[in-house]
């Protein structure tokens, strides 16, 4: 409440009292590196207006690019937004600095459900603050699927993992994420095995399942399916919730009579989290803390969610999120579904080799 009054009334007072502070901040820049199409840009403008800190905002479209830049070091970024497993790996390498939580009072608004899950990757939540989260599930072209198979089990992984079902959609176009970290846990979970299994024999079983449906998959790719679904070029994709929702919105914008829907498989799905963290060599960590605190203001993060249609990890923001999004069970699932969402942990290098090799084998179909 005090926070609220401050931001509303006392901006000019702050300016008057702390001219030197603001001036100091103003000649500083904040460099943010985030996923593409992932923020309402007016949030950045408002932040600059409020603090005088100029924001340089760069984007990437694959996790690998971020991870490689971080591993090389000296990236010059103050805030980056890695996804769970990548976050864990980069934490283990020692890329990030611990957060000075006294500078982020808005952490009090966070949602335990998400914060606790994030602690799997970031023990004690020392390093990262969740920005957005979502699931990995089924994106599909509503009319085409209905046409080919009126009783298609769109709410089940049978859509992909049952050969007699997925084969029906082969010619229509089936895409799958080019990401063993997402697909193999789904296959494991479908087989009734633990999704986070590190047992090579169990992983091989998931591989056999994937090989059996390989002939029906047009391509493994992690982003092409967005445009493919939106244009009506493909009719089924195993992908990230937000990307499918983006495809749905693009199709609606293009008004091309393509209707896209997303569903969370009833067998359970992977819950992923993109979280903000500050690299050790960040040139301006103070500004980074200020930004993280700013974006976790319930109204601000709600604005971001309303724009990108992803759920966020801020409980109090839900009062400001549009009803359309908050009531959408594919974005904010109900409790029963939430319980079925699983998280996974990174593989050690040896298991990773098994996974990568298996993945190449599956992709090349040999």
């Amino acid at each position, binding site marked *: 409440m005090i926070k609220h009054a401050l931001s509303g009334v006392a901006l000019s007072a702050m300016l008057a009292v702390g001219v030197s502070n603001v001036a100091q901040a103003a000649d500083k820049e904040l460099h943010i590196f985030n996923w593409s199409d992932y923020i309402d840009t007016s949030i950045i403008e408002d932040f600059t207006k409020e603090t005088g800190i100029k924001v340089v905002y760069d984007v990437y479209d*694959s996790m690998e690019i971020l*991870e490689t830049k971080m591993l090389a070091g000296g990236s010059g970024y103050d805030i980056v937004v890695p996804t769970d497993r990548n976050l864990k790996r980069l934490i283990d*390498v020692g890329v990030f600095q611990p957060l000075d939580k006294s500078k982020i009072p808005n952490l009090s608004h966070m949602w335990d459900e998400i914060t606790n899950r994030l602690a799997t990757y970031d023990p004690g939540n020392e390093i990262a603050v969740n920005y957005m989260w979502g699931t990995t599930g089924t994106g599909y072209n509503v009319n085409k699927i209905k046409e080919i198979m009126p009783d298609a089990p769109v709410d089940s992984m049978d859509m992909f993992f049952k050969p007699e079902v997925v084969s029906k959609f082969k010619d229509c176009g089936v895409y799958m994420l080019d990401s063993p970290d997402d697909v193999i846990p789904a296959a494991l979970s479908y087989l009734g095995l633990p999704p986070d299994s590190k047992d090579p024999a169990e992983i091989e079983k998931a591989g056999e399942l994937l090989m059996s449906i390989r002939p029906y*998959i047009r*391509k493994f*790719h992690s982003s092409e399916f967005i445009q493919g679904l939106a244009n009506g070029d493909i009719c089924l994709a195993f992908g990230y919730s937000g990307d499918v929702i983006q495809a749905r919105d693009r199709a609606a914008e293009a008004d091309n009579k393509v209707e896209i829907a997303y569903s969370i498989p009833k067998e359970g799905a992977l819950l992923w989290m993109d979280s903000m963290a500050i690299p050790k060599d960040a040139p301006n960590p103070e500004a980074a803390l200020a930004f993280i605190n700013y974006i976790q203001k319930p109204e601000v993060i709600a604005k971001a969610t309303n724009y990108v249609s992803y759920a966020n990890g801020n409980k109090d923001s839900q009062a400001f999120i549009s009803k359309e999004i908050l009531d959408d069970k594919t974005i904010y699932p109900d409790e029963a579904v939430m319980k079925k969402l699983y998280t996974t942990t990174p593989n050690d290098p040896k298991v990773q080799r098994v996974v990568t090799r298996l993945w190449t084998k599956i992709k*090349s*179909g040999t």
Partner: protein
Amino acid sequence: MAMTTTGAPGRGWLRWLVVAIPYLWLIVLFLAPFLIVLKISFSTTAIAMPPYTPALDLSAGLGALWEQIQEFTFDNYIFLTEDSLYLQSYLSSLKIAAISTFLILLVGYPIAYGMARARREWRPTLLMLVILPFWTSFLIRVYAWIGILKPEGLLNQMLLGLGVISEPLNILPSTLAVYIGIVYSYLPFMILPLYATLEKLDETLLEAAADLGCPPIQAFWKITFPLSIPGVVAGCFLVFIPAVGEFVIPDLLGGSDTLMIGKTLWAEFFSNRDWPVSSAVAVVLLAILVVPIMLFQNAQKKASE
């Protein structure tokens, strides 16, 4: 005379500089990066920043440096031979590059021939048309092929409209689409050297052949083609060498089953985060390509003799 004697030392310095610039260029932009890659290829992956060890820290002194150098290992190269994936990728890349080069020669030769035989005043325009696509980014031109080849793309719409096919062709993504992309993208590199040799061809030789009763087709195989071989060789190498390491075209147009070393290297570096193995892949690729480059230089030398 006085002018030249005073100018001589200056000119010597200038000459030295002119010779040094290309060498400096090669050292800074080719040799130094290559040595770094070579060094990483002898390292071991580590959970660290950068993700390999030893990182060769000069600040630790020369003794420590020697200790770090002793940690170098050939394991990554041995690993490449143990997993058939890498051999398959190299072979598949060489095959795709070789077939593409042949196709480009088949398409490019008639074009270059037609250009060289066109009326003199048309030639600059024709040459311009060959070069014109370079004004658009390579990446965008490859993307344009997605629009042409995709199931609901221009090609399928046209063929469906004409009634040639009743079901859209699934060309994209596939290895066939990769061939189309490579042939399209590298065609100018074949046409330009071919055109250069064919244009210089002495036409009186063909006239003499005709006078002596040689039919045009035979004259082509006996005179024109042998004389254009330097252009064919130059064009083939200019196309083949970059095509082997091609990454963008197989990534955008190829299917998941299109195996090329560029993609394998990318996965090794970005997905596996195994910088040492990916460096070893790159070094071996370079070694494989040095062979055709040396053959090319030999052929050039012979041609100039």
